[in-house]
Protein backbone atom coordinates (compact mmCIF):
# COMPACT_ATOMS: atom_id res chain seq x y z
CA UNK A 1 0.00 0.00 0.00
CA UNK A 2 1.45 3.28 -1.11
CA UNK A 3 2.15 5.73 1.65
CA UNK A 4 -0.02 8.84 1.42
CA UNK A 5 1.72 11.87 0.07
CA UNK A 6 3.12 13.85 2.95
CA UNK A 7 1.53 17.26 3.31
CA UNK A 8 3.69 20.34 3.16
CA UNK A 9 3.54 20.89 6.87
CA UNK A 10 4.85 17.41 7.56
CA UNK A 11 7.82 18.05 5.31
CA UNK A 12 8.76 21.16 7.23
CA UNK A 13 10.86 20.84 10.32
CA UNK A 14 8.86 21.38 13.48
CA UNK A 15 5.61 22.36 11.74
CA UNK A 16 6.73 25.92 11.55
CA UNK A 17 4.28 27.20 8.99
CA UNK A 18 1.11 25.31 9.80
CA UNK A 19 0.39 24.71 13.44
CA UNK A 20 -1.47 21.43 13.79
CA UNK A 21 -1.09 20.93 17.50
CA UNK A 22 -4.17 19.56 19.31
CA UNK A 23 -4.60 22.85 21.07
CA UNK A 24 -4.74 24.81 17.83
CA UNK A 25 -7.12 22.33 16.30
CA UNK A 26 -9.33 22.72 19.34
CA UNK A 27 -9.25 26.50 19.10
CA UNK A 28 -10.11 26.48 15.42
CA UNK A 29 -12.75 23.80 15.90
CA UNK A 30 -14.33 25.69 18.77
CA UNK A 31 -14.49 28.85 16.70
CA UNK A 32 -16.09 26.96 13.83
CA UNK A 33 -18.55 25.27 16.17
CA UNK A 34 -19.63 28.61 17.57
CA UNK A 35 -20.07 29.80 14.01
CA UNK A 36 -22.60 27.01 13.48
CA UNK A 37 -24.23 27.01 16.91
CA UNK A 38 -24.91 30.68 17.54
CA UNK A 39 -26.92 31.19 14.32
CA UNK A 40 -29.07 28.23 15.38
CA UNK A 41 -30.29 30.40 18.24
CA UNK A 42 -32.30 32.38 15.72
CA UNK A 43 -34.69 29.45 15.82
CA UNK A 44 -35.56 30.52 19.37
CA UNK A 45 -36.94 33.75 17.96
CA UNK A 46 -38.31 32.53 14.64
CA UNK A 47 -40.10 29.35 15.69
CA UNK A 48 -42.40 30.99 18.28
CA UNK A 49 -43.44 33.67 15.80
CA UNK A 50 -44.14 31.13 13.08
CA UNK A 51 -45.96 28.88 15.53
CA UNK A 52 -48.07 31.74 16.82
CA UNK A 53 -49.02 32.89 13.34
CA UNK A 54 -49.64 29.35 12.13
CA UNK A 55 -51.64 28.19 15.13
CA UNK A 56 -53.86 31.24 15.35
CA UNK A 57 -54.44 31.38 11.58
CA UNK A 58 -55.18 27.67 11.33
CA UNK A 59 -57.73 27.98 14.10
CA UNK A 60 -59.36 31.18 12.93
CA UNK A 61 -59.21 31.44 9.15
CA UNK A 62 -61.75 28.63 8.46
CA UNK A 63 -64.25 30.31 10.80
CA UNK A 64 -63.68 33.85 9.65
CA UNK A 65 -66.41 35.48 7.64
CA UNK A 66 -66.62 38.97 6.34
CA UNK A 67 -69.64 39.45 8.54
CA UNK A 68 -67.65 39.01 11.75
CA UNK A 69 -65.44 41.95 10.89
CA UNK A 70 -67.98 44.33 9.43
CA UNK A 71 -71.05 43.61 11.51
CA UNK A 72 -72.18 46.66 13.43
CA UNK A 73 -74.58 44.79 15.65
CA UNK A 74 -73.94 45.04 19.42
CA UNK A 75 -70.83 43.18 20.46
CA UNK A 76 -71.83 39.79 21.87
CA UNK A 77 -70.30 36.51 20.94
CA UNK A 78 -70.35 36.43 17.18
CA UNK A 79 -69.16 39.76 15.82
CA UNK A 80 -66.06 41.88 16.19
CA UNK A 81 -67.19 44.92 14.24
CA UNK A 82 -67.73 46.98 17.38
CA UNK A 83 -64.35 46.30 19.06
CA UNK A 84 -62.59 46.80 15.74
CA UNK A 85 -64.22 50.17 15.11
CA UNK A 86 -63.65 51.24 18.70
CA UNK A 87 -59.99 50.27 18.44
CA UNK A 88 -59.68 52.42 15.34
CA UNK A 89 -61.27 55.42 17.08
CA UNK A 90 -59.18 54.96 20.20
CA UNK A 91 -55.92 54.59 18.31
CA UNK A 92 -56.87 57.56 16.14
CA UNK A 93 -57.34 59.84 19.13
CA UNK A 94 -54.29 58.54 21.03
CA UNK A 95 -52.08 58.79 17.95
CA UNK A 96 -53.24 62.36 17.36
CA UNK A 97 -52.34 63.29 20.93
CA UNK A 98 -49.07 61.35 20.85
CA UNK A 99 -48.02 62.96 17.56
CA UNK A 100 -48.94 66.42 18.78
CA UNK A 101 -46.87 66.11 21.95
CA UNK A 102 -44.16 63.77 20.71
CA UNK A 103 -43.40 65.50 17.44
CA UNK A 104 -43.23 68.94 18.99
CA UNK A 105 -41.22 67.68 21.91
CA UNK A 106 -38.78 65.78 19.74
CA UNK A 107 -38.17 68.72 17.42
CA UNK A 108 -37.70 71.12 20.30
CA UNK A 109 -35.32 68.70 21.99
CA UNK A 110 -33.23 68.15 18.91
CA UNK A 111 -33.12 71.68 17.61
CA UNK A 112 -33.88 74.30 20.22
CA UNK A 113 -32.90 73.15 23.69
CA UNK A 114 -29.44 73.55 25.15
CA UNK A 115 -27.70 70.22 25.72
CA UNK A 116 -28.45 70.05 29.42
CA UNK A 117 -32.21 70.40 29.00
CA UNK A 118 -32.23 68.18 25.95
CA UNK A 119 -30.62 65.34 27.82
CA UNK A 120 -33.12 65.75 30.65
CA UNK A 121 -35.94 65.53 28.11
CA UNK A 122 -34.41 62.42 26.51
CA UNK A 123 -34.01 60.78 29.90
CA UNK A 124 -37.68 61.39 30.55
CA UNK A 125 -38.68 59.76 27.27
CA UNK A 126 -36.42 56.77 27.87
CA UNK A 127 -37.73 56.26 31.38
CA UNK A 128 -41.31 56.48 30.18
CA UNK A 129 -40.63 53.80 27.57
CA UNK A 130 -39.23 51.58 30.30
CA UNK A 131 -42.10 52.14 32.72
CA UNK A 132 -44.33 49.06 32.98
CA UNK A 133 -47.67 49.55 31.26
CA UNK A 134 -49.56 48.63 34.42
CA UNK A 135 -48.04 51.65 36.16
CA UNK A 136 -49.24 53.96 33.41
CA UNK A 137 -52.61 52.26 33.74
CA UNK A 138 -52.65 53.11 37.43
CA UNK A 139 -51.79 56.71 36.64
CA UNK A 140 -54.74 56.80 34.24
CA UNK A 141 -57.06 55.19 36.75
CA UNK A 142 -56.05 57.39 39.68
CA UNK A 143 -55.79 60.64 37.74
CA UNK A 144 -58.46 60.56 35.04
CA UNK A 145 -60.99 58.08 36.35
CA UNK A 146 -60.95 59.03 40.01
CA UNK A 147 -59.37 62.46 40.47
CA UNK A 148 -60.78 64.19 37.40
CA UNK A 149 -63.92 62.09 37.73
CA UNK A 150 -64.19 61.16 34.06
CA UNK A 151 -65.09 57.60 34.98
CA UNK A 152 -64.20 54.39 33.16
CA UNK A 153 -64.70 55.87 29.70
CA UNK A 154 -63.22 56.19 26.24
CA UNK A 155 -61.44 59.48 26.96
CA UNK A 156 -59.64 58.11 30.03
CA UNK A 157 -58.39 55.19 27.95
CA UNK A 158 -57.33 57.35 25.02
CA UNK A 159 -55.34 59.85 27.09
CA UNK A 160 -53.70 57.07 29.12
CA UNK A 161 -52.76 55.29 25.93
CA UNK A 162 -51.35 58.49 24.45
CA UNK A 163 -48.98 58.76 27.44
CA UNK A 164 -47.80 55.34 26.48
CA UNK A 165 -47.27 56.21 22.82
CA UNK A 166 -45.82 59.72 23.12
CA UNK A 167 -42.22 58.73 23.98
CA UNK A 168 -41.93 56.55 20.87
CA UNK A 169 -42.89 59.44 18.59
CA UNK A 170 -40.73 61.74 20.68
CA UNK A 171 -37.64 59.58 20.34
CA UNK A 172 -37.93 59.05 16.61
CA UNK A 173 -38.59 62.76 16.00
CA UNK A 174 -35.59 63.65 18.15
CA UNK A 175 -33.40 61.06 16.44
CA UNK A 176 -34.56 62.05 12.96
CA UNK A 177 -33.88 65.76 13.47
CA UNK A 178 -30.61 65.13 15.28
CA UNK A 179 -29.27 63.02 12.44
CA UNK A 180 -29.88 65.61 9.73
CA UNK A 181 -26.35 66.44 8.60
CA UNK A 182 -24.91 69.60 10.05
CA UNK A 183 -24.04 70.85 6.60
CA UNK A 184 -27.66 70.96 5.52
CA UNK A 185 -28.63 72.87 8.62
CA UNK A 186 -25.83 75.35 8.16
CA UNK A 187 -26.65 75.78 4.49
CA UNK A 188 -30.27 76.57 5.33
CA UNK A 189 -29.44 78.98 8.12
CA UNK A 190 -26.59 80.48 6.14
CA UNK A 191 -28.83 81.28 3.21
CA UNK A 192 -31.11 83.25 5.45
CA UNK A 193 -33.73 80.81 6.66
CA UNK A 194 -35.18 81.55 10.06
CA UNK A 195 -35.11 78.66 12.55
CA UNK A 196 -38.80 78.00 12.04
CA UNK A 197 -38.38 78.05 8.26
CA UNK A 198 -35.52 75.61 8.60
CA UNK A 199 -37.59 73.25 10.75
CA UNK A 200 -40.68 73.31 8.57
CA UNK A 201 -39.26 73.60 5.04
CA UNK A 202 -35.93 71.78 5.33
CA UNK A 203 -35.88 69.57 8.40
CA UNK A 204 -39.37 68.14 8.33
CA UNK A 205 -39.23 66.82 4.74
CA UNK A 206 -35.92 65.09 5.44
CA UNK A 207 -36.99 63.69 8.78
CA UNK A 208 -40.50 62.80 7.70
CA UNK A 209 -40.05 59.13 6.74
CA UNK A 210 -38.28 58.33 9.96
CA UNK A 211 -40.89 60.14 12.02
CA UNK A 212 -43.54 58.19 10.14
CA UNK A 213 -41.91 54.92 11.21
CA UNK A 214 -42.02 56.16 14.80
CA UNK A 215 -45.71 56.96 14.49
CA UNK A 216 -46.49 53.54 13.05
CA UNK A 217 -44.47 51.85 15.78
CA UNK A 218 -46.35 53.81 18.40
CA UNK A 219 -49.63 52.73 16.78
CA UNK A 220 -48.56 49.09 16.73
CA UNK A 221 -47.66 49.29 20.40
CA UNK A 222 -50.83 51.13 21.33
CA UNK A 223 -53.06 48.65 19.51
CA UNK A 224 -51.48 45.76 21.38
CA UNK A 225 -51.73 47.36 24.82
CA UNK A 226 -54.12 45.72 27.25
CA UNK A 227 -53.49 46.56 30.88
CA UNK A 228 -53.91 50.36 30.81
CA UNK A 229 -57.12 50.05 28.81
CA UNK A 230 -58.68 47.42 31.03
CA UNK A 231 -57.93 49.67 34.00
CA UNK A 232 -59.34 52.84 32.49
CA UNK A 233 -62.33 51.75 30.38
CA UNK A 234 -65.46 49.85 31.21
CA UNK A 235 -66.38 47.31 28.55
CA UNK A 236 -69.37 48.10 26.38
CA UNK A 237 -71.37 46.44 23.66
CA UNK A 238 -71.63 49.44 21.35
CA UNK A 239 -69.25 51.79 19.61
CA UNK A 240 -68.86 54.78 21.95
CA UNK A 241 -71.08 57.66 20.90
CA UNK A 242 -69.22 60.28 22.90
CA UNK A 243 -65.89 60.74 24.63
CA UNK A 244 -67.53 59.83 27.90
CA UNK A 245 -69.05 56.48 26.98
CA UNK A 246 -67.61 53.10 27.90
CA UNK A 247 -65.80 51.28 25.12
CA UNK A 248 -64.35 47.89 24.26
CA UNK A 249 -61.25 47.22 22.18
CA UNK A 250 -59.77 44.09 20.62
CA UNK A 251 -57.28 43.35 23.37
CA UNK A 252 -60.01 43.55 26.00
CA UNK A 253 -62.06 41.05 24.00
CA UNK A 254 -59.16 38.61 24.14
CA UNK A 255 -58.49 39.20 27.83
CA UNK A 256 -62.12 38.85 28.89
CA UNK A 257 -62.98 35.84 26.81
CA UNK A 258 -59.99 33.58 26.79
CA UNK A 259 -60.28 32.28 30.35
CA UNK A 260 -64.02 31.62 30.13
CA UNK A 261 -63.51 28.12 28.73
CA UNK A 262 -66.74 28.42 26.75
CA UNK A 263 -65.79 27.32 23.22
CA UNK A 264 -67.71 30.15 21.54
CA UNK A 265 -66.03 32.82 23.64
CA UNK A 266 -62.58 31.28 23.26
CA UNK A 267 -63.07 31.20 19.50
CA UNK A 268 -64.05 34.87 19.63
CA UNK A 269 -60.87 35.60 21.58
CA UNK A 270 -58.87 33.82 18.90
CA UNK A 271 -60.60 35.71 16.13
CA UNK A 272 -59.75 38.95 17.87
CA UNK A 273 -56.18 37.74 18.36
CA UNK A 274 -55.96 36.97 14.65
CA UNK A 275 -57.13 40.44 13.66
CA UNK A 276 -54.74 41.99 16.18
CA UNK A 277 -51.84 39.94 14.87
CA UNK A 278 -52.61 40.88 11.26
CA UNK A 279 -52.80 44.59 12.12
CA UNK A 280 -49.66 44.62 14.26
CA UNK A 281 -47.56 42.56 11.87
CA UNK A 282 -48.84 44.71 9.00
CA UNK A 283 -47.74 47.87 10.77
CA UNK A 284 -44.35 46.33 11.49
CA UNK A 285 -43.90 45.41 7.84
CA UNK A 286 -44.83 48.96 6.82
CA UNK A 287 -42.22 50.27 9.24
CA UNK A 288 -39.58 47.98 7.73
CA UNK A 289 -40.46 49.00 4.18
CA UNK A 290 -40.40 52.71 4.96
CA UNK A 291 -37.12 52.54 6.82
CA UNK A 292 -35.52 50.47 4.06
CA UNK A 293 -36.59 52.99 1.40
CA UNK A 294 -35.52 55.82 3.64
CA UNK A 295 -32.06 54.31 4.01
CA UNK A 296 -31.74 54.12 0.24
CA UNK A 297 -32.94 57.68 -0.17
CA UNK A 298 -30.44 58.90 2.37
CA UNK A 299 -27.65 57.07 0.63
CA UNK A 300 -28.57 58.74 -2.66
CA UNK A 301 -28.92 62.11 -1.04
CA UNK A 302 -25.74 62.38 0.92
CA UNK A 303 -23.10 60.48 -0.97
Amino acid at each position, binding site marked *: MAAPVASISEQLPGDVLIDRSPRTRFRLGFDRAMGWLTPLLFLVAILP*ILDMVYYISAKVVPTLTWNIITSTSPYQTDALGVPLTTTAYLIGLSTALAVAFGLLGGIVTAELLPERWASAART*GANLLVGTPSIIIGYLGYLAFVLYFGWGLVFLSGAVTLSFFMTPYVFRTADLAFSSIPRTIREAALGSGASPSQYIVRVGLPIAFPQILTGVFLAMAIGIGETAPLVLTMESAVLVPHSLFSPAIVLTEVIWENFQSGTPVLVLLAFQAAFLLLVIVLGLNVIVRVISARYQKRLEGLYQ
Partner: protein
Amino acid sequence: MDASAPSSETGGREPLPSPSTPNGGAPSPPGSRLAWLRYLALVPALIPLGVIFAIVYTISWASHLTSLPGFFSFNWAPTTNWGIGVFVVGSFMTAVPALFFSMVIGLGLAVASTTYLPRLISSLLDPFVDLLAGIPSVIYGIWGFVVIGPYFGLTLNPWLSAHLQLIPWFHATRTAPINSLGLGLPLAIFVLTLMSLPITTLLIRDSLRAVPKDLWESGLALGATRWEVLRRVAFPYSRRGIMSAAFLGFGRAFGETVAVAMLIGSTAQIPPSFYGTGYTLAAAMFELIDSAYTSAQWLSVLTEMALVLLVISLVVNIAGRRLVISLSTTEVAGV
Protein backbone atom coordinates in the same frame (compact mmCIF):
# COMPACT_ATOMS: atom_id res chain seq x y z
CA MET B 1 -12.99 56.42 22.35
CA ASP B 2 -15.45 55.25 24.95
CA ALA B 3 -18.44 53.20 23.81
CA SER B 4 -20.61 55.08 26.24
CA ALA B 5 -19.82 58.52 24.88
CA PRO B 6 -22.77 60.11 23.17
CA SER B 7 -22.56 59.56 19.44
CA SER B 8 -21.50 62.55 17.44
CA GLU B 9 -24.85 62.58 15.68
CA THR B 10 -27.03 63.15 18.69
CA GLY B 11 -24.72 65.13 20.90
CA GLY B 12 -22.86 68.36 20.67
CA ARG B 13 -25.20 70.32 18.40
CA GLU B 14 -25.69 73.85 19.46
CA PRO B 15 -29.37 74.89 19.63
CA LEU B 16 -30.86 76.98 16.86
CA PRO B 17 -30.78 80.71 17.41
CA SER B 18 -33.96 81.99 18.94
CA PRO B 19 -36.14 83.98 16.55
CA SER B 20 -36.78 86.55 19.23
CA THR B 21 -33.12 87.45 19.53
CA PRO B 22 -31.58 89.15 16.55
CA ASN B 23 -28.10 88.71 17.99
CA GLY B 24 -28.21 85.02 17.19
CA GLY B 25 -28.40 82.52 20.00
CA ALA B 26 -27.28 84.76 22.83
CA PRO B 27 -29.82 84.73 25.62
CA SER B 28 -32.32 87.54 25.60
CA PRO B 29 -31.66 90.30 28.07
CA PRO B 30 -33.78 89.85 31.18
CA GLY B 31 -35.89 92.86 30.43
CA SER B 32 -36.91 91.68 26.97
CA ARG B 33 -40.63 91.21 26.60
CA LEU B 34 -40.21 87.98 24.68
CA ALA B 35 -37.73 86.30 27.02
CA TRP B 36 -40.37 84.02 28.50
CA LEU B 37 -41.06 82.58 25.05
CA ARG B 38 -37.82 80.65 25.29
CA TYR B 39 -39.14 78.80 28.30
CA LEU B 40 -42.37 77.99 26.50
CA ALA B 41 -40.35 75.79 24.16
CA LEU B 42 -39.46 73.61 27.12
CA VAL B 43 -43.06 72.55 27.65
CA PRO B 44 -43.56 69.96 24.90
CA ALA B 45 -40.06 68.60 25.37
CA LEU B 46 -40.59 67.95 29.03
CA ILE B 47 -43.94 66.16 28.65
CA PRO B 48 -42.46 62.66 29.03
CA LEU B 49 -40.53 63.76 32.10
CA GLY B 50 -43.69 65.42 33.37
CA VAL B 51 -45.59 62.16 32.97
CA ILE B 52 -42.92 60.39 35.03
CA PHE B 53 -43.29 63.00 37.77
CA ALA B 54 -47.07 62.74 37.51
CA ILE B 55 -46.83 58.99 38.00
CA VAL B 56 -44.58 59.33 41.03
CA TYR B 57 -46.73 62.07 42.52
CA THR B 58 -50.11 60.44 41.86
CA ILE B 59 -49.11 57.04 43.13
CA SER B 60 -47.46 58.42 46.25
CA TRP B 61 -50.49 60.63 46.86
CA ALA B 62 -52.99 57.80 46.51
CA SER B 63 -51.21 55.31 48.72
CA HIS B 64 -51.86 56.15 52.34
CA LEU B 65 -49.43 53.62 53.74
CA THR B 66 -52.21 52.26 55.89
CA SER B 67 -51.09 48.69 55.51
CA LEU B 68 -47.54 49.16 56.69
CA PRO B 69 -47.46 46.71 59.57
CA GLY B 70 -47.00 43.41 57.84
CA PHE B 71 -46.77 45.01 54.39
CA PHE B 72 -43.51 43.28 53.56
CA SER B 73 -44.44 39.99 55.20
CA PHE B 74 -45.28 36.87 53.24
CA ASN B 75 -48.83 36.54 54.46
CA TRP B 76 -51.39 37.81 51.96
CA ALA B 77 -54.65 37.71 53.85
CA PRO B 78 -56.72 40.59 52.48
CA THR B 79 -58.32 43.05 54.88
CA THR B 80 -56.35 41.74 57.87
CA ASN B 81 -52.74 41.43 56.78
CA TRP B 82 -51.52 42.77 53.45
CA GLY B 83 -48.22 40.98 53.01
CA ILE B 84 -47.01 41.66 49.49
CA GLY B 85 -43.86 39.60 49.99
CA VAL B 86 -45.33 36.74 47.97
CA PHE B 87 -45.78 39.01 44.95
CA VAL B 88 -42.33 40.54 45.15
CA VAL B 89 -40.71 37.12 45.46
CA GLY B 90 -42.86 35.84 42.61
CA SER B 91 -41.76 38.73 40.42
CA PHE B 92 -38.09 38.04 41.12
CA MET B 93 -38.54 34.30 40.66
CA THR B 94 -39.90 34.85 37.17
CA ALA B 95 -37.83 37.83 36.07
CA VAL B 96 -34.39 36.64 37.16
CA PRO B 97 -34.37 33.26 35.35
CA ALA B 98 -36.04 34.88 32.32
CA LEU B 99 -33.30 37.49 32.30
CA PHE B 100 -30.63 34.79 32.55
CA PHE B 101 -31.99 32.88 29.57
CA SER B 102 -32.58 35.97 27.49
CA MET B 103 -29.05 37.24 28.21
CA VAL B 104 -27.49 33.92 27.18
CA ILE B 105 -29.60 33.66 24.03
CA GLY B 106 -29.22 37.38 23.35
CA LEU B 107 -25.43 37.15 23.58
CA GLY B 108 -25.48 34.22 21.17
CA LEU B 109 -27.76 36.02 18.73
CA ALA B 110 -25.73 39.21 18.88
CA VAL B 111 -22.49 37.28 18.34
CA ALA B 112 -24.02 35.41 15.41
CA SER B 113 -25.28 38.49 13.65
CA THR B 114 -22.26 40.71 14.28
CA THR B 115 -19.47 38.17 13.90
CA TYR B 116 -20.34 34.89 12.26
CA LEU B 117 -23.11 35.48 9.78
CA PRO B 118 -22.66 37.31 6.48
CA ARG B 119 -24.20 40.77 6.54
CA LEU B 120 -26.97 39.83 4.13
CA ILE B 121 -28.18 36.85 6.13
CA SER B 122 -28.06 38.63 9.45
CA SER B 123 -29.99 41.56 8.00
CA LEU B 124 -32.68 39.06 7.01
CA LEU B 125 -32.78 37.29 10.38
CA ASP B 126 -32.46 40.22 12.79
CA PRO B 127 -35.96 41.60 12.06
CA PHE B 128 -37.48 38.41 13.45
CA VAL B 129 -35.92 39.07 16.83
CA ASP B 130 -37.11 42.67 16.71
CA LEU B 131 -40.56 41.44 15.75
CA LEU B 132 -40.82 39.59 19.06
CA ALA B 133 -41.04 43.03 20.69
CA GLY B 134 -43.90 44.03 18.44
CA ILE B 135 -46.21 41.15 19.29
CA PRO B 136 -48.86 42.23 21.84
CA SER B 137 -48.59 40.62 25.24
CA VAL B 138 -52.16 39.26 25.17
CA ILE B 139 -51.15 37.27 22.13
CA TYR B 140 -48.19 35.82 24.02
CA GLY B 141 -50.63 35.04 26.79
CA ILE B 142 -53.24 33.27 24.71
CA TRP B 143 -50.61 31.40 22.69
CA GLY B 144 -48.75 30.35 25.83
CA PHE B 145 -51.97 29.23 27.46
CA VAL B 146 -53.26 27.16 24.56
CA VAL B 147 -50.13 25.91 22.80
CA ILE B 148 -47.18 25.91 25.20
CA GLY B 149 -49.01 25.37 28.50
CA PRO B 150 -50.29 21.83 27.80
CA TYR B 151 -46.86 20.81 26.53
CA PHE B 152 -45.24 22.08 29.72
CA GLY B 153 -47.90 20.52 31.94
CA LEU B 154 -48.03 17.10 30.31
CA THR B 155 -44.52 16.56 28.99
CA LEU B 156 -41.78 18.92 30.06
CA ASN B 157 -42.59 19.48 33.74
CA PRO B 158 -43.10 15.77 34.56
CA TRP B 159 -39.89 14.96 32.71
CA LEU B 160 -37.93 17.65 34.59
CA SER B 161 -39.45 16.55 37.87
CA ALA B 162 -38.46 12.93 37.23
CA HIS B 163 -34.91 13.77 36.24
CA LEU B 164 -34.17 16.51 38.75
CA GLN B 165 -35.81 14.92 41.74
CA LEU B 166 -32.60 14.93 43.73
CA ILE B 167 -32.69 18.71 43.84
CA PRO B 168 -35.30 19.52 46.50
CA TRP B 169 -37.23 22.36 44.95
CA PHE B 170 -37.35 20.77 41.50
CA HIS B 171 -39.22 17.71 42.65
CA ALA B 172 -42.99 17.86 42.43
CA THR B 173 -44.64 16.46 45.53
CA ARG B 174 -48.14 15.40 46.44
CA THR B 175 -48.78 18.73 48.13
CA ALA B 176 -47.52 20.59 45.09
CA PRO B 177 -48.47 18.50 42.09
CA ILE B 178 -47.82 19.52 38.51
CA ASN B 179 -50.94 21.05 37.03
CA SER B 180 -51.79 19.66 33.65
CA LEU B 181 -52.50 23.09 32.13
CA GLY B 182 -48.86 23.88 32.67
CA LEU B 183 -49.61 27.16 34.42
CA GLY B 184 -46.86 28.25 36.77
CA LEU B 185 -43.29 29.44 36.96
CA PRO B 186 -41.75 27.57 33.98
CA LEU B 187 -44.38 28.84 31.55
CA ALA B 188 -44.09 32.42 32.80
CA ILE B 189 -40.30 32.23 32.59
CA PHE B 190 -40.49 30.87 29.05
CA VAL B 191 -42.74 33.65 27.81
CA LEU B 192 -40.84 36.36 29.69
CA THR B 193 -37.64 35.10 28.09
CA LEU B 194 -39.15 35.60 24.66
CA MET B 195 -40.51 39.01 25.61
CA SER B 196 -37.26 40.36 27.00
CA LEU B 197 -35.15 38.80 24.24
CA PRO B 198 -35.49 41.69 21.73
CA ILE B 199 -34.20 44.38 24.07
CA THR B 200 -31.24 42.38 25.34
CA THR B 201 -30.31 41.26 21.83
CA LEU B 202 -30.63 44.74 20.40
CA LEU B 203 -28.50 46.41 23.04
CA ILE B 204 -25.79 43.73 22.99
CA ARG B 205 -25.75 43.79 19.20
CA ASP B 206 -25.35 47.57 19.16
CA SER B 207 -22.58 47.53 21.72
CA LEU B 208 -20.70 44.78 19.86
CA ARG B 209 -21.03 46.76 16.63
CA ALA B 210 -19.46 49.71 18.42
CA VAL B 211 -16.20 47.82 18.98
CA PRO B 212 -13.65 49.57 16.75
CA LYS B 213 -12.56 47.65 13.68
CA ASP B 214 -8.90 48.23 14.54
CA LEU B 215 -9.24 46.18 17.69
CA TRP B 216 -10.85 43.36 15.75
CA GLU B 217 -8.23 43.39 13.06
CA SER B 218 -5.29 43.55 15.41
CA GLY B 219 -6.71 40.64 17.35
CA LEU B 220 -7.15 38.55 14.22
CA ALA B 221 -3.73 39.54 12.92
CA LEU B 222 -2.13 38.26 16.11
CA GLY B 223 -3.57 34.86 15.32
CA ALA B 224 -6.58 34.81 17.58
CA THR B 225 -9.71 33.13 16.31
CA ARG B 226 -12.89 35.14 16.00
CA TRP B 227 -14.21 33.59 19.21
CA GLU B 228 -11.04 34.54 21.08
CA VAL B 229 -11.26 38.12 19.88
CA LEU B 230 -14.85 38.18 21.07
CA ARG B 231 -14.00 36.69 24.46
CA ARG B 232 -10.87 38.69 25.15
CA VAL B 233 -11.43 41.96 23.31
CA ALA B 234 -15.00 42.61 22.24
CA PHE B 235 -16.85 41.48 25.37
CA PRO B 236 -14.63 43.43 27.78
CA TYR B 237 -14.80 46.45 25.52
CA SER B 238 -18.61 46.43 25.38
CA ARG B 239 -19.27 45.31 28.93
CA ARG B 240 -21.18 48.48 29.78
CA GLY B 241 -23.56 47.89 26.91
CA ILE B 242 -24.02 44.28 27.93
CA MET B 243 -24.73 45.28 31.52
CA SER B 244 -27.25 47.87 30.43
CA ALA B 245 -28.93 45.16 28.34
CA ALA B 246 -29.24 43.12 31.51
CA PHE B 247 -30.76 46.00 33.47
CA LEU B 248 -33.26 46.99 30.81
CA GLY B 249 -34.17 43.38 30.04
CA PHE B 250 -34.80 42.86 33.73
CA GLY B 251 -37.01 45.93 33.83
CA ARG B 252 -38.99 44.56 30.90
CA ALA B 253 -39.44 41.14 32.47
CA PHE B 254 -40.21 42.53 35.91
CA GLY B 255 -42.99 44.85 34.81
CA GLU B 256 -44.69 42.57 32.28
CA THR B 257 -48.35 42.30 33.17
CA VAL B 258 -50.92 40.67 30.97
CA ALA B 259 -49.03 37.68 29.62
CA VAL B 260 -47.85 36.76 33.12
CA ALA B 261 -51.32 37.24 34.56
CA MET B 262 -52.60 34.72 32.00
CA LEU B 263 -49.86 32.17 32.59
CA ILE B 264 -48.59 32.14 36.15
CA GLY B 265 -51.70 30.61 37.69
CA SER B 266 -52.61 33.57 39.91
CA THR B 267 -52.21 32.05 43.36
CA ALA B 268 -51.03 34.31 46.18
CA GLN B 269 -48.31 32.00 47.43
CA ILE B 270 -44.63 31.42 47.03
CA PRO B 271 -44.50 28.54 44.54
CA PRO B 272 -44.06 25.38 46.64
CA SER B 273 -42.05 23.77 43.88
CA PHE B 274 -40.56 24.91 40.59
CA TYR B 275 -43.72 23.74 38.85
CA GLY B 276 -46.12 25.48 41.21
CA THR B 277 -48.33 28.46 40.54
CA GLY B 278 -47.59 31.88 41.98
CA TYR B 279 -48.23 35.55 41.42
CA THR B 280 -46.22 38.61 40.43
CA LEU B 281 -46.57 42.23 41.49
CA ALA B 282 -47.73 43.47 38.11
CA ALA B 283 -50.12 40.57 37.52
CA ALA B 284 -51.68 40.98 40.96
CA MET B 285 -52.09 44.73 40.47
CA PHE B 286 -53.84 44.01 37.21
CA GLU B 287 -56.14 41.18 38.24
CA LEU B 288 -57.14 42.47 41.67
CA ILE B 289 -58.09 45.98 40.51
CA ASP B 290 -61.78 44.95 40.45
CA SER B 291 -61.76 44.90 44.26
CA ALA B 292 -60.48 48.46 44.29
CA TYR B 293 -63.55 49.77 42.45
CA THR B 294 -65.58 49.40 45.62
CA SER B 295 -63.07 49.42 48.46
CA ALA B 296 -60.84 52.35 49.35
CA GLN B 297 -58.60 50.09 51.39
CA TRP B 298 -57.97 47.78 48.44
CA LEU B 299 -57.20 50.77 46.25
CA SER B 300 -54.73 52.07 48.76
CA VAL B 301 -52.96 48.72 49.06
CA LEU B 302 -52.81 48.18 45.30
CA THR B 303 -51.39 51.66 44.88
CA GLU B 304 -48.73 50.86 47.43
CA MET B 305 -47.86 47.80 45.37
CA ALA B 306 -47.66 50.09 42.34
CA LEU B 307 -45.26 52.26 44.31
CA VAL B 308 -43.00 49.27 45.01
CA LEU B 309 -43.07 48.23 41.36
CA LEU B 310 -42.45 51.82 40.25
CA VAL B 311 -39.43 52.24 42.52
CA ILE B 312 -37.86 48.98 41.38
CA SER B 313 -38.45 49.67 37.70
CA LEU B 314 -37.21 53.27 37.93
CA VAL B 315 -34.03 52.18 39.70
CA VAL B 316 -33.37 49.45 37.15
CA ASN B 317 -34.11 51.71 34.19
CA ILE B 318 -32.06 54.63 35.44
CA ALA B 319 -29.13 52.31 36.10
CA GLY B 320 -29.48 50.74 32.66
CA ARG B 321 -29.76 54.04 30.82
CA ARG B 322 -26.85 55.59 32.65
CA LEU B 323 -24.65 52.79 31.41
CA VAL B 324 -25.42 53.59 27.79
CA ILE B 325 -25.97 57.30 27.64
CA SER B 326 -26.54 57.51 23.94
CA LEU B 327 -29.67 55.92 22.63
CA SER B 328 -29.17 53.16 20.12
CA THR B 329 -29.61 54.41 16.61
CA THR B 330 -32.06 51.70 15.69
CA GLU B 331 -35.58 52.26 16.88
CA VAL B 332 -37.44 49.02 17.41
CA ALA B 333 -40.98 48.37 18.52
CA GLY B 334 -41.30 48.02 22.25
CA VAL B 335 -37.65 48.67 22.96
